[in-house]
């Protein structure tokens, strides 16, 4: 009712979805519980024991009566209780769409027939999209696997292992190479050291004279 007063388009969409809900619920109901038993079961189906049926009965009873609870007395946007009344025109419209949905489901699914296949054939692309859940899962998996894992994580790990680590390893290789190359200077020969000492002194003297 709030949607009806606020925005008719939203109301239309919600109205259609209410009908759809009735339709698919009863489709499910008819498919599972009605029709001939042509399926081979591994385990013969039987009635559930009391510890399963009693909670179900309890919940079902609650579902029947909860609608009559005046929620407006307890829950509202500003904490003050407000009285609700039934707007009969909209209420009867929504009951109507529910009944229409149930009727369509009954016609199509109560007995095994070819109507569902014909409808599916008539709207093949829509049927395919709905069957594949609008490819949402594939979309999310694509983003995660192909984009985040492959295009971001893999290069990051590669960069870390080869470029950053590689730079550190380069520093160490450089240190090792340089030290290997200049090793020969430590010859152990006194003559070499004397020569270096003499040449060094000459250079220092010349520099002191020149500067």
């Amino acid at each position: 009712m709030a949607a009806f007063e606020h925005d008719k388009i939203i109301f239309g969409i919600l109205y259609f979805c209410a009908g759809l809900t009735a339709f698919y619920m009863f489709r499910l109901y008819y498919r599972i519980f009605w029709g001939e038993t042509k399926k081979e079961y591994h385990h013969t189906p039987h009635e559930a024991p009391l510890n399963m049926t009693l909670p179900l009965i309890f919940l079902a009873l609650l579902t029947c009566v909860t609608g009559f609870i005046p929620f407006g007395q307890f829950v509202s946007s500003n904490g003050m209780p407000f009285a609700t009344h039934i707007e009969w025109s909209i209420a009867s419209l929504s009951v109507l769409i529910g009944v229409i949905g149930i009727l369509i489901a009954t016609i199509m699914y109560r007995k095994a027939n070819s109507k569902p296949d014909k409808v599916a054939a008539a709207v093949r692309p829509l049927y395919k999209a709905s069957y594949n859940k609008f490819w949402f899962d594939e979309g999310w998996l694509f983003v995660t696997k192909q984009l985040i894992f492959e295009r971001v994580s893999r290069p990051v790990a590669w960069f870390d292992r080869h470029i950053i680590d590689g730079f550190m390893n380069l520093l160490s290789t450089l240190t090792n190479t340089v030290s290997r190359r200049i090793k020969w200077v430590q010859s152990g020969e006194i003559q070499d050291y004397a020569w270096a000492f003499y040449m060094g002194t000459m250079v220092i003297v010349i520099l002191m004279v020149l500067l």
Partner: protein
Amino acid sequence: MSFLSLFVIIPLLMLVCFIPCRSNMHAIRTVAVAGAALLLILSFVTTYLFLAERSAGNTAEMLFTSDILWYPALKIHYSVGVDGISVAMLLLSSIIVFTGVFASWNMNPLPKEFFMWFSLLSIGVYGFFISVDLFTMVLFYEVALIPMYLLIGVWGTGRKEYSAMKLTLMLMGGSAFMILGVLGIYFSVGMDNGQYTFNMLEIAKTGIPIEAQRIFFPLTFVGFGVLGAMFPFHTWSPDGHASAPTAVSMLHAGVLMKLGGYGCFRVAVSLMPEAAHEQSWIFLTLTGISVIYGAFGAIRQKDLKYINAYSSVSHCGLVLFAILMLNETATTGAVMQMLSHGLMTALFFALIGMIYGRTHTRDIREMGGLMRVMPFLSVSYVIAGLASLGLPGLSGFVSEMTIFVGSFQHTDMFHRIFTIVAVSSIVITAVYILRVVGKILYGGIQDEHHAHLTDAAWYERLAVVVLIVCIASIGLYPSFVSDLIRGSLTTLAIW
């Protein structure tokens, strides 16, 4: 002489008491447990006394101070004191040392030598947290660093020699920057009036000229940032953690990386706040990158320890990120994150070590269905994973929430964009954590040898339960931690 020095004396005594043990496993374990338990009790006592002093109205910056002149010519003192943040860090270290001892119950070969190096490591760690004198602080940092090389290189697994050398050299490089920064602070503090000092409290009072700050803040921050796994200096972390033995990984990821965060806060940001404010954008960029980079890098890894190591890079980057936000809420969050991540990563490494000890593989492709085989270890792993991805009720959520609220208090685009980028790392963390959990713990058993493995022994259960209790209690009652550190943040300039 303040009782705080006991934190350094007890591990020293442990070191000495190990010598007569020879190869008697029973004696070695007794000394280790006794020492670790003493340290744990001491840290609880310190916390209690600290809180008592604070509620009695003592608002001095550092409590339980003690100062001994060490080397008069260079004005080096052995100066100790604690404030709320140090107390939190001391608690963290004691818990991890205690649980680490139990996680190394069956260390071989050479268990006595292992525990001796471990004690030396804890001397360095405790000394760092109680130091008030900059020189002593750096000294203890080096003391904590050197044993890492041997602990990883001898008792490690995989490419241990390479990892040990890389870790030590890179952290030494960091300490070189650190020493440069500290010396710069020392000389610039005394430049005008000749009052050279290494004491942090005096430097904070006097202040440092802004020209000097501009040079030495980056040096100090990078120096400590190397240890705090700041991009691009984080690369010692994955290999180092993966090759280290269990207790060493626990201590390193849990405590040593927090030395970096603590140093950044105490030395870089507190002593040089103007330069921190000016240059924070550079380091915010780098730490923001490490938060995301670590998370994305973790997704790709196949080795449990590498995943956890990259996760540590990400979380420790968040600590530095929060410190750079330079406001009270974010810094509170940073300290809580240090505490929370320390405990959580210690738990992770302990569990990985226990799983590795049983399955002899750390490759996630070779493991599966372990929940049925080792329920205690698996459930603990799930809890650790949930703490890592910030599930409310565990400590990770509290600290990350505080950090992000504090970071978002900056109203300019730059800070806010980086905050949003950092928040998105939570999602990435969830991806790699839950993937690993699903892969190795659930599903079918990959290797039929795994079906006959034993669950945790009593000493392993003790270590794991202690850590989980700490993580959960911080998650459920965080005000204990935030009250502890609140008084220490009033000196921080609010930007």
